[in-house]
């Protein structure tokens, strides 16, 4: 495949982008059909509401404020997505991001509410908690070959109930929620650095948001430009070859999951130290943030930069769902749409395969030569990884 390869359509990055967009469109379409089934008269209005999200508010200032709210929740989602993405680059499926997120939330709230620590300490502790959870999975994987999905899921629940227990002493008397960070220990709140003012005086908009984007870029740099990233990706693509070339594949596995855990843990403090949400100590299901992170990762074409946009999109329609007329539609409808989109993400590889065969067919029709002697290739090979950049 020497010639014509520079055309836009055969560019893997563009293909991934196109595939993600197709997933989104089809997902929205199916969501719309579901809305039609529930209530044909209000379906169009419903889907528009979801898509408009904060734009429902006419005035610029109010819209900005609610855009801020969406962004506040995008930051932790992005961090979870980056956690999944980082581990995936090393061939590990970090479904434990949800538990690492929980661990991070637990320790940062404990530090903020019980120990009355300032925010930088809380941030670091949330990373340590997440990293510890990730490392447990990593050690089990590296030395006992325990599947990281199994140990990750089990740790999710261990994390949830441990955190519920640990935070019960600092819950509000009248509600299952932990005390507000803003009232108990304002020094633990993340600084807004004037960002709140831009977003219609939204005090929840903090440095967390630019920080999350910065970390995404950083992850990309680490994975693609550094020796560490070279090792991690080699380990992920072929563990045996990594070992053969003298890389410490066990250490790398543990380190990868620890870093992934730290990212997810940090994500939790990005949300809870903004004061936007409080932890409910009676919740009996693992927060969906970590799982949505998986979705955002795949929708983002497994690329840190793509993940920024996909995280925002998923949060955008999730927030949009909350504006739906509750009397007509359940709020979960936006979860349903994002679920469908995520489901379709599985077709990204298929979609790219489809494009490639079409290109090949067209090229064959025009030129008949271009004979490159190669091993019989398995046609699906180049679809193995999503948006892998050169």
């Amino acid at each position, binding site marked *: *495949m*020497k010639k014509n*390869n520079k055309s836009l359509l055969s560019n893997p990055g563009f293909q991934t982008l196109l595939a993600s967009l197709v997933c989104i469109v089809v997902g929205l379409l199916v969501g719309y059909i579901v809305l039609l089934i529930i209530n044909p008269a209000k379906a169009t209005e419903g889907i528009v509401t979801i898509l408009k999200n904060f734009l429902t508010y006419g005035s610029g200032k109010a819209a900005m404020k609610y855009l801020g709210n969406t962004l506040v929740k995008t930051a932790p989602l992005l961090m979870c997505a980056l956690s999944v993405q980082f581990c995936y680059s090393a061939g590990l499926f970090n479904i434990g991001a949800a538990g690492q997120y929980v661990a991070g939330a637990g320790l940062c709230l404990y530090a903020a509410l019980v120990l009355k620590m300032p925010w930088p300490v809380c941030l670091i502790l949330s990373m340590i908690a997440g990293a510890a959870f990730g490392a447990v999975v990593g050690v089990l994987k590296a030395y006992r070959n325990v599947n990281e999905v199994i140990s990750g899921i089990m740790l999710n629940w261990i994390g949830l109930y441990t955190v519920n227990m640990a935070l019960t002493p600092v819950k509000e008397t009248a509600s299952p929620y932990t005390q507000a960070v803003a009232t108990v220990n304002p020094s633990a709140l993340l600084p807004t650095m004037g960002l709140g003012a831009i977003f219609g005086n939204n005090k929840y908009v903090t440095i967390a948001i630019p920080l999350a984007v910065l970390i995404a870029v950083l992850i990309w740099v680490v994975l693609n*430009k*550094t*020796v*560490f990233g*070279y*090792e991690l*990706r*080699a380990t992920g*693509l*072929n563990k*045996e*070859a*990594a*070992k*053969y*070339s*003298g890389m410490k594949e066990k250490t790398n596995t543990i380190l990868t999951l620890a870093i992934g855990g730290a990212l997810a843990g940090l994500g939790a403090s990005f949300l809870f130290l903004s004061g936007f949400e409080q932890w409910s100590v009676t919740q009996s299901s693992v927060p969906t943030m970590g799982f949505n992170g998986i979705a955002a990762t795949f929708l983002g074409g497994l690329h840190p930069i793509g993940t920024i946009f996909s995280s925002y999109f998923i949060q955008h329609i999730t927030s949009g769902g909350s504006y739906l007329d509750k009397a007509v539609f359940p709020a979960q409808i936006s979860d349903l749409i994002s679920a469908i989109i995520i489901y379709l993400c599985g077709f990204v590889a298929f979609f790219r395969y489809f494009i*490639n*065969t079409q*290109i*090949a067919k067209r090229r*064959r029709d025009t030129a008949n030569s*271009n*004979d*490159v*002697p*190669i*091993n*019989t*290739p398995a*046609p699906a*090979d*180049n679809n*193995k*990884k999503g948006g*892998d950049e*050169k």
Partner: protein
Amino acid sequence: MSEYAIEMLNITKRFPGIIANDNITLQLRKGEIHALLGENGAGKSTLMSVLFGMYQPEEGVIKKDGKEVKINNPNDANDLGIGMVHQHFMLVQCFTVLDNIILGAETTQYGVLQKDEARRKVTELSEKYGLKVDLDAKIEDITVGMQQRTEILKMLYRDNEILIFDEPTAVLTPAEIDDLMVIMKNLSAEGKSILFISHKLNEIMTVADRCSVLRRGKYIGTVDIKDTTQEELSRMMVGRDVSLKVDKTPAHPGEEVLRVENMSVASKRGSKMAVNNVSFNVRAGEIVCIAGIDGNGQSELVYGLSGLEPLASGKITLKGKDITNSSIRERSVSGLSHIPEDRHKHGLVLDYSLEYNMILQRYFSPDFSNGAGFLKRPEIRSFSEKLIDQFDVRSGEGPVTIVRSMSGGNQQKAIIARELEKNPELLIAVQPTRGLDVGAIEYIHRQLIAQRDAGKAVLLVSLELEEVLGVPDRILVMYEGEIVGEFDPKKTTREELGLYMAGARKEGHTA
């Protein structure tokens, strides 16, 4: 009735970017042994996949007994009486031979297995064709040769008329190869039509009636074996004259580079030692070859030397330095290069670019990364361009080519380039020519000898007798984890080596 059992006429199969089969015609006469010869990547496997319905050709037809047939999946092929002995056997390890033969074609009554009838039929078949097997032995306990006979019986039990052997001799001892040749002749004498896929010219000359040659996806021609020579076949296969003889001058061994004393490596399976108390040395300026049938501890020996597996006991010294407990990287840095047995498993990160694979063991060195931990990409690029140029590694897009898309021969060249560029004291090359065509084999042999002549030590592990007799200066035969004999390639014969490799003979050996 047609004179052909199966005909594949003008088959064309394309994949994105390449034409794997370009207008190929293959006609298998009834009762003949027809060899299919071609280099790796010539399109043999694709053609067989088309015959078994795993791929649908864009053009061309398949005829059985002169009638056009449509083969959509392997079951269709089975129904047409086409059976195949795969290179890697498809047997259930913990089942008996009989169970494996009847698996999928069991005779039952009210859902209960009726093995007596099957046993009678299999016994009859094995006597008729001289296929000696122990029906009640478990696959894991029998020799590779018997496993292969089990596979052949599987085809016969299903009344297959067209038998395909995919490189069947790769795993056999010389004596077993001779047996197989006899079996194949018996089968064809009984009217079975045999397609024999191979790139071993001497075997084709021995057993086949006709031979079709493919090269780079194209059909080159079909010749009668009695009217041709090995040289002609190799010319058809490669497209140019190749020397089948290895040219080299006598070795001038210098000081000892590798010393292995009483080395043992545990087996992955069971409690036996895969390598049992082995001692030998390799000197500068000589090529020592470990010969043996696959699975007699050669792989584990190399794992032990390269550090991929820990030693159970023993000592390894490289240039006077004890490396018994050194890490893989320490060994690599102290001058050990390793061309691994399995280039896809160990040798390459297939989804990495060629340039990234070229620095696989050296990415951390100051040449390719800076103090801050960033890769020096321009240096990596120019380094790999130099290697690509020097070793003539061919690929679609040069340094940025994803290695997976390269041909097996060029992948191997990339590994060899990388390992030789390290300028090692000791080069361990494990089956470096496996699966490669004659042209590439010639190239690799020359590189090994060039290393030797440059005063390096080379340890070659090989299963191919041609290579064992042609390339090295000393031969060590391994059998069941032990070195059972040392030979001078100029003074030994295939037959003698074969006896030692099969464990029929053994000598008291000291390093």
